[in-house]
């Protein structure tokens, strides 16, 4: 059996050494990907079933639109009272016997988790799906410290073996064909080749069983933190998070601070909405609330439970009232599934932990607008993302807001020059007329010359023929 690849050096999607290259890489990868029609067809086909099951489940709501209102309101009132709810969660979780850790940034979060692993004298670590751990590059840090770590979610496990980050934050390996998975398992697990998804799943299942039993520490994410009761809620389909939080001696959960909700009752709305928007299920297979370590009288469960609360610039989004609602995100992935850009450029092109429309909104906040503003252009502004969002985040308008903010802080040179020329011409009628005449005459020349500024535009489009007379002269003649 080949040892697991570390995955760190080959994480193309999440770690770009020089962020200035992010835009260049995006444009390059997008162009490459768009040409790969086979891959695009594969991804579209994989998403085909999603629309059908989601619509069937939406129809079972007696009023889906009003249920969206309820979900939106629950998140709105939590995010806007984070100052009150975060300490309340921490207090109640501590009273339940858990320990809360606060991390200002990724480095601090990694340090906390590594400290807990040292304290627990951990030998084997099992993980269930946790996007915040991707965000802070936890696996690389653990491996650098010599801890073996295995991703237990099937999709994440496949991505770990491939040395790739998740392609989609809900469907991590939706871009991988079954024969590639068969080859991968053959190489790393020594399993016989097969083209049956069922058999491939069973190979991973058998491989993982021992690891759950042997692991000392289980690391999970959290979908919601319930302030009222001090519980964390984890949503999953496979049962791997249940095993990760149930069998090892220590359970560590890492969660963004925006995951807090006020009341336990809020979950009666949010859990079904998350499942319906995310995968078209009535409820995801396992929705589990953990309030702390094993209690007296319970027959199993961890001796210690820790929650790491991660800021990592979420408070910067919070400080922007206009885009604060992007913290309502429950990471269902619906906006990716409906996005024409995502379906055409693919998950890796974004180069971010959180792909798709919501990733394009929050990444410039989390990692700097100057380097990531190009993602605001990764949208046709069709609004499909906003329509799909179960908590009514105004996603496509936020992409516009980011474009506006970027133009304010660093307006483009050509844009500025263009506006100045226009102002000069528009305020002098004779110059405006002369400019119009010159432009009508030279349009043909422009088409023939294909200057670099217009090259990309002209590659797939034609300029219309110039009208023989200006609008003003036509008007005068009427």
């Amino acid at each position, binding site marked *: 059996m080949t040892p697991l690849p570390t995955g760190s050096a080959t994480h193309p999607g999440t770690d770009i050494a020089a962020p200035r290259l992010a835009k260049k890489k995006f444009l390059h990868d997008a162009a490459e990907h768009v040409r790969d029609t086979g891959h695009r067809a594969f991804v579209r086909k994989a998403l085909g079933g999603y629309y059908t099951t989601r619509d069937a489940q939406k129809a079972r709501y007696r009023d889906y639109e009003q249920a*969206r*209102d309820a979900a939106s*309101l629950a998140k709105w009132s939590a995010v806007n009272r*984070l100052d009150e709810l*975060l300490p309340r969660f921490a207090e109640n979780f501590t009273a339940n016997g858990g320990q809360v850790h606060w991390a200002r940034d990724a480095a601090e979060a990694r340090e906390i988790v590594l400290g807990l692993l040292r304290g627990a004298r951990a030998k084997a670590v099992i993980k269930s799906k946790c996007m915040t751990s991707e965000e802070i590059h936890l696996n690389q840090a653990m491996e650098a410290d010599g801890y073996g770590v295995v991703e237990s979610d099937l999709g994440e496990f496949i991505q770990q073996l491939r040395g790739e980050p998740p392609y989609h934050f809900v469907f991590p390996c939706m871009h991988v064909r079954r024969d590639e998975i068969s080859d991968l398992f053959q190489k790393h697990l020594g399993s016989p080749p097969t083209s049956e998804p069922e058999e491939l799943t069973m190979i991973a299942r058998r491989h993982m069983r021992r690891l759950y*039993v042997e692991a000392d520490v289980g690391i999970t994410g959290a979908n919601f933190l319930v302030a009222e009761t001090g519980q964390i809620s984890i949503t999953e389909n496979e049962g791997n998070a249940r095993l990760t939080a149930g069998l090892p001696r220590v359970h560590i959960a890492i969660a963004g601070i925006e995951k807090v909700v006020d009341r336990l009752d809020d979950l009666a709305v949010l859990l*079904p909405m998350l499942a319906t928007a995310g995968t078209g299920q009535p409820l995801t*297979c396992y929705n589990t609330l953990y309030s702390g370590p094993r*209690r007296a009288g319970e027959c199993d469960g961890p001796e210690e439970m820790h929650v790491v609360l991660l800021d990592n610039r979420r408070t910067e989004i919070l400080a922007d009232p206009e885009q604060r609602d992007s913290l309502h995100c429950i990471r269902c992935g619906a906006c990716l599934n409906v996005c024409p850009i995502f379906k055409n450029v693919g998950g890796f092109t974004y180069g971010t932990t959180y792909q798709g429309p919501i990733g394009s909104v929050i990444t410039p906040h989390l990692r700097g607008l100057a380097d990531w503003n190009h993602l605001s252009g990764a949208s046709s502004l069709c609004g499909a993302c906003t329509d799909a969002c179960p908590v009514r985040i105004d996603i496509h308008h936020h992409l516009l807001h980011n474009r506006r903010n970027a133009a304010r802080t660093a307006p483009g040179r050509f844009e500025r020059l263009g506006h100045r020329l226009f102002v000069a011409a528009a305020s002098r009628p004779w110059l405006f007329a002369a400019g119009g005449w010159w432009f009508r005459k030279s349009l043909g020349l422009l088409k023939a010359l294909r200057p670099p500024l217009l090259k990309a535009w002209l590659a797939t489009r034609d300029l219309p023929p110039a009208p023989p007379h200006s609008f003003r002269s036509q008007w005068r003649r009427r």
Partner: protein
Amino acid sequence: MSSTRMGDARETILARVREALRLPAPPPHLQSPALDPAPTGSLPVLPLEAARPWLPDGGDSPEESRRILGENLARLKAELHHVADAAAAAAFLADLARGRNWKRVATHGHPLVATAAATLACDTERVDAGPFDKDALEACDAGVTSCEVLVAQTGSVLVSSATCGGRALSVLPHVHVVVATADQVVPTLGDALHAVRERHAGRLPSMLSFITGPSRTGDIERILVLGAHGPKELIVLLVG
């Protein structure tokens, strides 16, 4: 990590949060006239009861709830069997074990479960009679548990670590059998949460898990496969 640095981080984050929230956010774009912020000037904190008529139906009578539960479990590819009484549940389970050639079945001390497992011909493993061996539990063909409630609206089984055999029993063995009484069926998720809070007033179990069908994954080409890491089969025996 020293405790002072820890405290610093907490204070820094909470100070950032307070500072950020000094500017109020515009109200969310809602479509429901019932939630119009204009009349009151502020948004209501929505009681769960208000959202109930919008969510999927859980039934208005016990009969209807049981019918909806049955439909949902069928859609989820879980099995539901009605049995007349505890003795019939025991006979059903014994038949199942014989038919499947189960060697070892894991159980816990709940009266319903104990009665149902009493006539099993194969070995049984109690998880709540002193520390149990994880490997032995993993090797069991099936786990039999009680539940807190069954939720009609979503077809879910709510188990807890306090009364349903802990954390691993309902997820580690390959088949999960749930024994419940017909009066444990509640209409909605909200009702289920209400029921556990009533039952465990002030001291919720360390784990509460809504199980909605057998374990599943769609990670390979989005094709549904049952039994990813948890049970491949979920069998509900409804007594009475």
